[in-house]
């Protein structure tokens, strides 16, 4: 390892330990490294946008290939800064309007292909029929599996939807039935949230394990080869 690489290794180790020091209590060192991380990310974004996008797609066509009209592109972008002028802020709204309009257009375009297949997929056959040309290995087992899954799917879908149906009071015969369905829907939602929380724990642990691996294998392992060897 070169001197620069060792310095980077130490910087990464110190940054990791400093950020984790918040587990003990709120402290300025942890905050400092948090801000450094955000600053580095912003700086990286700026450089990457220039080197991998603007240089090839804006600067080179304008300066090298002589397409001078690209000079107007940043002028439009700079209109955003008129937001700071009370008199000329209408110019910023022009640029924002274009952005909002484009975003709305893209979203409209995305919406139907994104959600319609899920609406179709929610119509499950409660009595499934397998393709006669390619039946599963165990027809009866696969059939019962599909039946249970589809009935459960429909039950969860309807009860959860009833939970979000607020237009009818849970009184009277029909209202009480809706109330019971909504209660069941709430239980299904809680089970789903529990599964999501379990996944969140798994994700956070993975991040922690990744950092511990770095500290043990790379940082301490650099000085104690036995440790580095455990990671290979």
């Amino acid at each position, binding site marked *: 390892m070169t001197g620069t690489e060792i310095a980077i290794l130490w910087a990464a180790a110190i940054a990791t330990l400093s950020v984790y020091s918040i*587990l003990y209590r709120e402290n300025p060192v942890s905050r400092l490294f948090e801000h450094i991380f955000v600053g580095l990310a912003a700086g990286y974004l700026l450089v990457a946008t220039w080197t*991998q996008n603007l240089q090839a797609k804006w600067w080179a066509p304008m300066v090298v290939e002589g397409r001078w009209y690209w000079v107007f592109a940043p002028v439009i972008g700079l209109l955003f800064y008129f937001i700071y002028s009370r008199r000329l802020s209408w110019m910023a709204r022009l640029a924002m309007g274009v952005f909002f309009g484009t975003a709305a257009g893209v979203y409209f375009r*995305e919406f139907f292909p994104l959600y319609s297949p*899920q609406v*179709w997929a929610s119509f499950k056959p409660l009595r499934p029929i397998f393709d006669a040309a390619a039946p599963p290995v165990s027809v009866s087992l696969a059939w019962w599996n599909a039946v249970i899954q589809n009935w459960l799917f429909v039950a969860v879908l309807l009860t959860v939807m009833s939970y979000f149906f607020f237009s009818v009071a849970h009184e009277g015969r029909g209202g009480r039935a809706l109330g019971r369905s909504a209660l069941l829907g709430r239980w299904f939602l809680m089970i789903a949230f529990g599964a999501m929380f379990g996944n969140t724990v798994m*994700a956070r642990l993975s*991040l922690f*394990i*990744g950092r511990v691996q770095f500290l043990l294998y790379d940082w301490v392992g650099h000085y104690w080869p036995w440790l580095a060897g455990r990671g290979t």
Partner: protein
Amino acid sequence: MADQSGSSGQMGAGASAGGFWARLQQIPRYYIYLLLAAVVIWQILFPIPFPVTPSATTRGLEEAIRAVPEGKLVLISADWDSSTQAETGPQTAAVVEACFRHRKRFVLMTLSPPMGAKLANNIASEIAKQYRATYGVDWANWGYKYGTSNVLMAMVKDVPKTVGSDFYGKPVKSLPIMRGVRTVKDIGLVVEVTGLAGMTEMWIGLIQGPQGVPFAAAYTAVMAPGYYPYLDSGQIEGMLVGAKGAAEMESLIARPGLGMAIMSAQSWAHVLIILFIIVGNLGYVLARGREKSG
């Protein structure tokens, strides 16, 4: 979970009653963190692995890679950075390995955040050495492309023009891997590796749905549950869930790597957390019972 005083959570109904069970709810959080760190370090140094069984979602992704026709590319959209690297790094490595293993040519691309292009490039270059794969022929990196949905919409018409230059600043048209690639329909499979919500919606809404390009994904475990409906509807061919998904893919292609290395620590840490949950709840219920009875 914990307040600044160091006790873990609120005291609950039974705390005022005192006693051993009430104290179970007031274990200082430092002990919990230290115990968790100890278990993780123990398992990193002396792993006792749990068996890894590939799930249907992981199999789906592997089969989707396998099914990419000859002459078409796999596009790996590495939309992640160092904040999720522990999960998305092994996932990217597993997908890259699977591509090399099944002799599928692939390209990397990053829509957001920009650091993904560099981190994914490091991973792919390392693995490419093992397979003696050549950059520009067997794989390439289109780099970070600014503009997210605009980039995707432009790729529908003309991929080389939209991408312009690769990660190293070289025009992509000059790369042999780009021969025959004109529009997005020349891509056989898109694999989105991300910890960002919203990227999948763009890929499906603008590319998978309207253009019919198969789509698969690798998500951080936090966001994965939200995307199961897309699997059910067939919009996503397969999915890796967190580091576990990476480990499953590694076991499928018989190449243990970064994912497997995380899993034993992950599993034992889960065992510890389950114990904490049992002990905490037991303490709560029994302390409440004591309080009610007297």
